[in-house]
């Protein structure tokens, strides 16, 4: 704990957000700005026979209309991660045009952009563009996409695979262990597709300044530098120093705003063509049809146990949809962010995952809160609980038995998994026991038995998880196919008056960085928080950055800032030593001043800063100024872990599930702001509950998304969730300076299997062993009928 670290300081960004004074892209109005709207395909798979813009072109207010043949498609949208086939063949990477050229590959794919004086005029003219299509058969299910004779998404290949992939031990060894196991638990299910639903829809404004030959793109992104890099180096082939990308306030992303989307590139390209700024803001219907989705795995899995209930082998085969094109990080999600988590918290000696990643006639799939890790956790935690039921062992006991022993990563080494990772530190037994105690596990079992006598269906579900955050180091991710590094940049500028501007490459879109980052910067410098400003989201201000996703901001971005603070203090000490006429070694820094040890001689941080900028009386050989930028490339991932427990009641008449209690005990390493961490957990848990009970993207056989609005896509609402009871254990990360692990995704990773395990537990005595998510009333009722 410091003055600020460990305190639930109120979020400073809320002052503007709560007053409706946030600065989102759509709030920005540039002089002479035009508006745009897209002509989008109503078909999932179709030939474009003709596009007739002659009427639309002459409609009121229309400035320009572009189609796929107008020069925007020279390169196409790249993907940022390459996962090659098991046999070494290169990943199949289809060209992803900004506007469809001759073929449509998913409903909502853009065919033309209309640019007009007002948004209404743009939309009116969209209705006047006449496109003639020839509809073709489509496939939206990743397993069916691999069937013989399935409709082909990209004609240049002979089947729909983008790649296949495997990880872990030799398949034959794993199969043999399972074949010889005392008990084998099997599962087949769909980890269904989700729409990300950030509250702020995607929004872009592109502007081209002909005199300076410079572009500015305002965009609702989680990583402005990455967008600039991808757009300049790949999509448009324009010089990077001629492009400024700005992303001020962003209203949530959950992954969906990491990616480089065709609309932002097209606007940037078109802004030069029309010589005026162009804005586009997605509406909710477009968001459903075009924001990258999450999950969509078909899973077949087996887990073998010995007589004592020890796991002896774990094998899974999965079909993981890529969608119509490869979104920015799509190939990494069901592979390196998924298979690497198959160890979970268990000592499983033999593990193998085989992934087939097909294209489907759907919007692309990419990372969505948790990205691959919720899918891994769901499978592990369901199959372990299912195994426990089948072997008649208590699910908590089975977990405790199979857990990896505690290790701190300092005295004890990290834990080497069968699936490439080395866990940093963890104490899994303690966290599960804490969860069980908090929920009152033993008492609940009595209550449950009593309730059953009265026909009341109560269930409890346990889920324990580990996740890998702050994906790194760059050399390793590069060897795994990443086309970018995964370091972060932290720039600390001490102003002459001792006030501090911190420029970070991380990007806040709901995480509260302005508060959390200021807290630790102020503490480390021993100055008031009000003296610290956090600046992000502008490529012109921040040297570089990889943005925010994968719970990386504090662990990676915070560490980069820490490196710069160290440099500030090191240089400051030289200046202080000069002013105090002492040796650097004789100084100590605390509470914002350097003091000569054992004396009352000291100089404050502000005085040193002023001296650095007004270097009249100054140490020799030291440069003026107090301004440092650092790149931090972590040595490892961080590994938060936790235990989530849900208690549910199922209505026997209707199958409706009500969550009565939800306990989340998480270990995210050191905590800077407990309130913000709790908020992240709350949000994540609600999203996880959403997946478990409510949310589902549904396509019909024609590739139409029949869940494309809030009338048909069920988001969790306040009355769908109970009060979330949070608690923590703290196992500091041994390899970063703040000892932090990451908290952004934990809630969404741990919660989903807890809820489904609880529902199955409530119905187990009726013969129910599994229910497909989302566990809707209809599915629960059907499961009860079948038994």
């Amino acid at each position, binding site marked *: 704990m410091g003055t600020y670290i460990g305190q639930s300081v109120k979020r400073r960004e809320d002052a503007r957000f709560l007053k409706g004074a946030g600065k989102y892209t759509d709030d920005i109005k540039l002089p002479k700005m035009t508006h745009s709207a897209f002509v989008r395909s109503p078909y999932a798979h179709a030939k474009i026979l003709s596009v007739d813009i002659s009427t639309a072109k002459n409609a009121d207010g229309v400035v320009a209309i572009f189609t796929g043949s107008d020069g925007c498609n020279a390169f196409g949208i790249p993907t940022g991660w390459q996962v090659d086939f098991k046999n070494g063949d290169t990943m199949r990477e289809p060209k992803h045009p900004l506007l469809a050229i001759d073929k449509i590959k998913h409903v909502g794919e853009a065919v033309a952009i209309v640019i007009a004086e007002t948004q209404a005029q743009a*939309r009116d003219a969209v209705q006047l563009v006449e496109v003639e299509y020839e509809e073709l058969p489509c496939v939206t299910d990743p397993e069916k996409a691999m069937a013989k004779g399935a409709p082909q998404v990209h004609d240049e290949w002979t089947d729909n695979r983008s790649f296949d992939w495997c990880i872990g031990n030799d398949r034959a060894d794993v199969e043999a262990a399972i074949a010889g196991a005392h008990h084998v638990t099997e599962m087949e299910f769909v980890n269904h597709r989700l729409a990300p639903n950030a509250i702020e829809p995607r929004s872009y404004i592109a502007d081209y300044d002909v005199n300076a030959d410079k572009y500015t793109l305002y965009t609702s992104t989680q990583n402005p530098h990455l967008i600039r890099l991808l757009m300049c180096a790949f999509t448009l082939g324009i010089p990077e120093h001629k492009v400024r990308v700005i992303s001020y306030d962003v209203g949530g992303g959950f992954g969906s705003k990491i990616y480089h989307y065709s609309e932002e590139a097209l606007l940037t390209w078109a802004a030069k063509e029309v010589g005026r700024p162009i804005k586009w803001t997605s509406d909710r219907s477009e968001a459903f049809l075009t924001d990258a989705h999450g999950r969509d795995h078909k899973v077949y899995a087996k887990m073998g146990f010995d007589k004592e209930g020890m796991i002896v082998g774990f094998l899974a085969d999965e079909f993981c949809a890529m969608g119509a094109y490869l979104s920015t990080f799509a190939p990494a999600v069901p592979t390196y962010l998924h298979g690497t988590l198959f160890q979970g918290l268990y000592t499983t000696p033999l593990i193998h995952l085989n992934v087939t990643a097909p294209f489907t006639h759907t919007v692309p799939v990419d990372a969505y809160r948790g990205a691959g890790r919720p899918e891994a956790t769901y499978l592990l935690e369901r199959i372990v609980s299912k195994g426990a039921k089948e072997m008649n062992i208590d699910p908590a006991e089975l977990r405790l038995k199979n857990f990896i022993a505690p290790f701190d990563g300092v005295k004890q080494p990290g834990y080497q998994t069968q699936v490439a990772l080395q866990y940093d530190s963890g104490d899994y037994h303690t966290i599960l026991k804490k969860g069980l105690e908090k929920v009152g596990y033993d008492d609940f079992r009595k209550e449950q038995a009593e309730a059953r006598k009265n026909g009341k269906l109560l269930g409890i579900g346990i889920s324990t998880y580990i996740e890998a955050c702050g994906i790194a180091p760059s050399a390793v991710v590069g060897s795994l196919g990443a086309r970018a590094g995964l370091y972060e940049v932290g720039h600390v500028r001490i102003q002459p008056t001792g006030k501090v501007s911190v420029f970070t490459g991380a990007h806040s879109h709901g995480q509260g960085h302005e508060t959390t980052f200021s807290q630790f910067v102020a503490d480390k410098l021993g100055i008031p928080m009000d003296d610290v400003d956090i600046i992000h989201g502008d490529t012109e201000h921040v040297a570089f950055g990889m943005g925010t996703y994968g719970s990386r901001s504090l662990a990676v971005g915070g560490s980069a800032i820490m490196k710069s603070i160290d440099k500030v203090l090191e240089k400051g000490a030289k200046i202080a030593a000069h002013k105090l006429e002492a040796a650097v070694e004789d100084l100590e820094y605390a509470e914002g001043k350097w003091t000569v040890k054992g004396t009352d001689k000291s100089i404050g941080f502000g005085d040193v800063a002023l001296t650095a900028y007004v270097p009249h009386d100054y140490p020799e050989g030291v440069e003026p100024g107090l301004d440092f930028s650092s790149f931090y490339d972590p040595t490892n991932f961080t590994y938060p872990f936790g235990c989530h427990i849900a208690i549910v009641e199922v209505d026997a008449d209707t199958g409706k599930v009500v969550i009565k209690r939800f306990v989340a005990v998480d270990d995210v390493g050191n905590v800077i702001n407990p309130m913000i961490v709790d908020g992240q957990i709350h949000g994540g848990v609600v999203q996880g509950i959403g997946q478990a009970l409510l949310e589902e993207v549904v396509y019909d056989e024609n590739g139409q998304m029949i869940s494309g609005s809030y009338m*048909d896509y069920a988001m969790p609402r306040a009355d769908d969730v109970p009060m979330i009871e949070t608690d923590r254990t703290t196992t500091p990360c041994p390899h970063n300076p703040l000892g932090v692990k990451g908290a952004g995704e934990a809630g969404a990773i741990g919660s989903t299997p807890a809820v489904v395990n609880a529902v199955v537990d409530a119905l187990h005595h009726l013969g129910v062993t599994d229910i497909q998510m989302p566990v809707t009333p*209809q599915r629960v009722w*059907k499961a009860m009928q079948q038994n």
Partner: protein
Amino acid sequence: MIPAKFDYKKVSSISEALELLAKHGDDAKLLAGGHSLIPAMKLRLNQPEILIDISQIAGMNTIKMDGDEIVIGANCTHHQILTSDVVKQNAKMLTEVAKMIGDIQVRNRGTIGGSLAHSDPSADWPASVLAADAKIEVEGKSGERTIAATDFFQGIFTTALEDDEIITAIRFPKIADGNYQKFFQSASRFAIAGVAVIKFGGKVRVGVTGVSDTPYRASAVEAAYDGTSSAAALAVDGVEVMSDHFAGEEYRSHLAKVLVKKALES
């Protein structure tokens, strides 16, 4: 989400509205609370050239007793009905129905007349309008008439209302022993099934919404009612049951029976 271009005219009397309706025909749409019409316009599923705003017509937004009947003006919002003492004292069931519609914003704008005219197969009001045997008062070019609830609903978004007619009020009898049960669709929170049961002199009238593309009176249940809830098994007799990804035919039928049973037992 921007609607296509349209004209807007606010009227202050029924006759003015009828005149405009006659003049513009199919190009015109009446606007009450706008909570069904405006979303459809924003999605450009509906592109009227002129909106005739009837929400401020005097006399169409009051709730009063007329002898033994409760007369609810078509422009009364769900919130008005929810908070009306007249309704609470004479037909408590309607208070309960209003409470279950949408959220506070929806209840503050949406009207009972708009809901009935729109005739969404999953809307709440039709169940109780049917169970109560309410009368729908309308006015058109050719004068005023009253449509019986059982004649009013004709199909998905289709009613007995003529193109040139306006619903002016809904006339409910007093409801002493009524009960509304709703199973919420988890996304829209409309009714996957909604059942209103009114008991009187040993008999029942049962109105069902959400289950079929036309709300209906469960006459098989009414005929077989024996004071217990066993007749609930007949809830979907002779009815074509809707199906969607929230509730297929089998589950929806089951829900209808469960809700009829609950309503009969309450």
